[in-house]
């Protein structure tokens, strides 16, 4: 596999390779958040918190405890999942924006914790993390996650998650244990957040608490909403656009973020339900089908 990676490194410009690796990581992170917010409808604005838990846990485990890459990733994801489970519990009582505030607060607490965390190098951060993450590992994991996610959302459990988002009382009346499933969504979503974080720290070589601030959470949320809430292709598209946009906007140099902000506003005005929101393959087929009928008649 390393040979394959070497070959890829040889043929693809390192700059593009880097963007593609970051895209893969963002897709995993965003799919996790999509499950919580896009599919189950629980607004989370602290996804970067779970990411940082995964990033630090896995980095420390592989640097100081000699964990193998995969074991470190898995452990980081598990610890993040545990905290996701804890954060899921307030969803029993909190709704909407109150929940959003708790997730923001949680992520901020985590950030402050790492700012004061000795083994994580405090505010200076952690450097010298082995660079195990490469194009192959990221995309193998990303494709696996996409496949599993797709299967999950098409299953009985997936439909139940959507039902909670659409109408909680009606969902409960069909026998869905809404509290259990909301906590499950948080746990699984945070697992993916932690996994993305581990991949990230083992790619970046160096991490510090500011990498996982509020703006990172917002960036991930944007990916989910921009593409179309709850849709896997939408989330992938959102990740794609928002990973690439800053790179494309490099030509406008220091005006980059200005354009980025304006882009968000404009996209929302023209596609308020996300770019792929309300678009289904079924509808497209139907539309094409109808056109054929029309041409027959005329």
């Amino acid at each position, binding site marked *: 596999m390393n040979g394959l990676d070497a070959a890829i490194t040889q043929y693809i410009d390192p700059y593009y390779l880097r963007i593609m690796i970051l895209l893969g990581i963002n897709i995993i992170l965003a799919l996790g958040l999509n499950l919580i917010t896009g599919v189950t409808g629980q607004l989370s604005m602290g996804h970067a918190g779970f990411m940082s838990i995964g990033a630090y846990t896995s980095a420390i485990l592989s640097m100081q405890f000699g964990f193998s890459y995969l074991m470190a990733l898995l452990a980081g994801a598990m610890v993040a999942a545990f905290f996701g489970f804890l954060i899921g519990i307030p969803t029993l009582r909190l709704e909407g924006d109150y929940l959003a505030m708790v997730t*923001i*607060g949680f992520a901020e607490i985590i950030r402050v914790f790492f700012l004061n965390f000795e083994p994580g190098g405090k505010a200076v951060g952690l450097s010298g993390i082995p660079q195990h993450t490469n194009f192959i590992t990221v995309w193998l994991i990303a494709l696996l996650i996409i496949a599993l996610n797709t299967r999950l959302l098409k299953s009985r459990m997936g439909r139940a998650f959507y039902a909670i988002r659409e109408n909680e009382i009606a969902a409960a009346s069909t026998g869905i244990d809404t509290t259990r499933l909301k906590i499950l969504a948080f746990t699984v979503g945070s697992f993916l957040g932690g996994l993305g974080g581990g991949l990230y720290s083992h790619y970046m070589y160096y991490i510090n608490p500011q990498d996982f601030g509020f*703006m990172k959470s917002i960036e991930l949320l*944007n990916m989910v*909403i921009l593409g179309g809430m709850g849709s896997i292709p939408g989330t992938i598209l959102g990740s794609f656009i928002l990973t690439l946009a800053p790179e494309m906007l490099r030509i406008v140099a220091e005006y980059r973020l200005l354009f980025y902000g304006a882009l968000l506003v404009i996209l*929302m*005005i023209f596609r308020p339900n*996300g770019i792929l929101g309300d678009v289904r393959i079924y509808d497209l087929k139907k539309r094409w089908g109808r056109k054929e009928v029309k041409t027959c008649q005329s």
Partner: protein
Amino acid sequence: MFWEQLLNGLTLGSTYALIALGYTMVYGIVQLINFAHGEIYMFGAFAGLILVSFFGVNLIVAMLGAMLFCMLLGILVERIAYRPLRGKSSRLSALISAIGVSIFLSTLMALMAGTNTHRYPDVIAHHTFHLGSLDFSLMQILILAVSALLMLGLQFMVQKTRIGKAMRACSQDLDASYLMGINVNRVISFTFAVGSALAAAGGVMVGVYYNAVWPYMGMMAGLKAFAAAVMGGIGSIPGAMIGGLSLGIMEIMGVAYLSSSYKDAIAFGMLILVLLIRPQGLMGQKISKKV
């Protein structure tokens, strides 16, 4: 020591409260977390700075000028970024639009003013008063007095005036208010204007008090103020005041008696604790779900 910290907490808390009021009023009417509100506060601080530095006006005039400027800015933001989305999209897309505005405004200011911290010139005498063992500065008195005045004024406006009545009606039911002949768009613009003016006043006072103004000052202040609004019970005006004051006091006390390196964590930790005990916030009304 304790009383001094309490006074510091009240000072900080009343600035949180001023910003939190904008969040809560807008939320009460259009159920939008106006993420650009922190940037309005930052623009207010800069507007005041420019008025003081380049036009040499006194602090009160600068504050009024900044309030007027931010009123217009608030109305403009609502027109451009929120109104086109109203009614035809989920609340989350409006939220993203608000985040877009927030990024846009802070970057705009960073491009214009640089990312450095700017200082207010001496606009107020550094006079310290003593009351028994308690020391307090003129600026602290000013902040407390101005905040109290603005909040009383707001309360009067919301409870006693015609437009206040319209605002309360809109916060109950936007559609019904529209059918009753209330110009809903005007009420919403007005709400943004008032909220922005309050934030601007907060921005100028914080700028002078901490002697620091910079383009990214809006983010953490905005987050804390939003936390204060939620803690008080979002949508409730007295809730925002109480939430702001208690968050400020908790933060200062936490720093004084626990640890300064966990300053932000303490504020958010308290918030989470409050919400776990009272899910609807301190002053929020329990919404019983209608089935």
